[in-house]
């Protein structure tokens, strides 16, 4: 991946549309912009504006129709499904609105999941997971199942899972959307720390202007087109 002076995400003339029956619905139209390495960017916009689609494209879980999409210098649109899976495992950390934890796994096991795709030993994994859970303030909840945790705690487990394999980019889709104000503040503080202290590039989709203020850069999407705002 690049250093902080380079764009970690380079997007040029990106378009994406979905087929709904016989109809083709454009979602993103001619998007061009760069995200510098180490940036904390918030993507805002009304429902259906295409912000989640843009996030999914950058995260490599969806493919564009046309345009250039380079993340960390790799044109991910050209990768096969298998290559994309490996690429995501190494470069992207996911934070979802509804946490998306495995209900049958404990907090420890959920955080450990991405490390199962690495050659680390159990001891190495254990050390990392414990450290990550300490960082998000859940050292006393390691053996708890998601159903035994509050929403804020579950999201903290999800954040630990997102950065455990040390990805360069964290993508967060409405990370505070399902939380109360206090929990949301805690989550945003953790994201801010990850950006500042661990130099993670964070791309966050949010409806919440208050949450967006945590980001250093805010970009608005409106009907699939990008506007600029700071």
């Amino acid at each position, binding site marked *: 991946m690049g250093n902080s002076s380079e764009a970690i995400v380079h997007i040029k003339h990106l378009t994406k549309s979905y087929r709904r029956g016989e109809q083709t619905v454009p979602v993103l139209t001619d998007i061009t912009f760069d995200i510098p390495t180490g940036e904390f960017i918030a993507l805002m916009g009304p429902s259906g504006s295409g912000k989640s689609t843009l996030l999914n494209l950058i995260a490599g*879980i*969806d493919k564009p129709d046309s345009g250039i999409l380079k993340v960390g210098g790799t044109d991910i649109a050209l990768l096969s*499904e298998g290559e994309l*899976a490996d690429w995501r*495992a190494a470069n992207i950390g996911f934070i979802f609105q509804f946490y998306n934890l495995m209900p*049958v796994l404990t907090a420890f096991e959920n955080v450990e*999941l991405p490390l*199962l*795709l690495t050659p680390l030993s159990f001891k190495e994994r254990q050390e990392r997971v414990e450290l990550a859970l300490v960082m998000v303030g859940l050292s006393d909840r390691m053996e708890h199942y998601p159903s035994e945790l509050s929403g804020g705690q579950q999201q903290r487990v999800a954040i630990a899972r997102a950065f455990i394999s040390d990805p360069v980019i964290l993508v967060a889709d409405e990370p505070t959307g399902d939380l109360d104000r206090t929990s949301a503040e805690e989550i945003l503080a953790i994201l801010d720390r990850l950006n500042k202290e661990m130099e993670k590039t964070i791309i966050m989709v949010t409806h919440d202007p208050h949450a967006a203020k945590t980001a250093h850069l805010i970009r608005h999407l409106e009907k699939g087109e990008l506007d600029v705002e700071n």
Partner: protein
Amino acid sequence: MHFLKLILRNTLRHKLRTGLTILGIIVAIVAFGLLRTVVDAWYSGAEGSSETRLVTRNAISLVFHLPIKYQDRIKKLRGVTEVTHASWFGGVYITEKNFFPQFAIDAKTYFDVYSEYIIPPKELTAFTTDRKGCVIGRKLADVYGLKIGDTVPIRGTIYPGTWKFNVRAIYDGAEAKTDTSQFFFHWDYLNESRKRVIARSARTTDWVGVYAINISEPSRASEISGEVDKLFKNSLAETRTETEKAFQLGFVSMTEAIVVAIRIVSYVVILIILAVMANTMAMTARERTSEYATLKALGFSHLFISGLIYGESMIIAFLGTLIGILLTFPVAAMFSAKVGTLFPVFGVSLETIYMQAIVALLIGITAAVIPAFRSAQVPIVEGLRSIG
């Protein structure tokens, strides 16, 4: 390790649903095993037949008998080591429900030809020296609580009157597949009683049902069969000789439609449980679409996702089958006890257990094919949007 942990925990996630599916598989596997055992029991006579034994019967039909004088003529043929005879008695012991075959036999030769019926020498001597004596199989003795010295009244349906026999010997089978539910008594007793009742009726006395012929070389079975039949060509009672196995299969073929029906039912049972299992796996996979999408987003492969579904399906099928196979034995024993001596040999064979295991493997794999394929194919974005 984590893969197995995830599979196991997923399997136990909906305990009721998993439990009911396993219960369904248990019932199906037991039913399949039981039906296969019934089919096996149907063929047990043929399976237990000897390669060195031929059976000669009246060429017209088994209903018609053969003269006793044929015995000596058959014995003189080259390659024939012993000849005996047996006649169907068709009596009733107390009630019609108590069915078991009774044969009037040549006491001197019968157990030489049927060497798989093991009788202690003292008991055999006691039988041969008692004109009203009888030999019963171990299963028969166990089912009806008969023992040496008991008197067994049999009401004749072909030969009128109530015939009383003294149990002089109980035979065991040389092998598990040997029929030990038969009842043998002296043909001489039957023949002489008939002579007294129907004086000078040459057509109903001195005749026997079938001849059993021991031969020295199984490879000459066809040749000797031809020679026997040639001996009595154009006689009053022409013969038809065949191997014991062919003779037994002739009986099975008379009821083949029933056997075919049982076989079909056994496969239908499996198809039904396959549909139930496939439905369970489809529901399971659909509910977890979002989780599978998350795993894929994290970098886990399609193969991993498919493995989770196949693994869960196999565990459910394995547990159901294991319990089903173990339960097949007591259920078969209960069934056997219930039907008494209707099936002379009734036991769950190794082949049946193999078939149950293969069926379980097929259920486990087949039920997971479509859910696994669909789950692997669902785009991540679409999967993440789904509500479990």
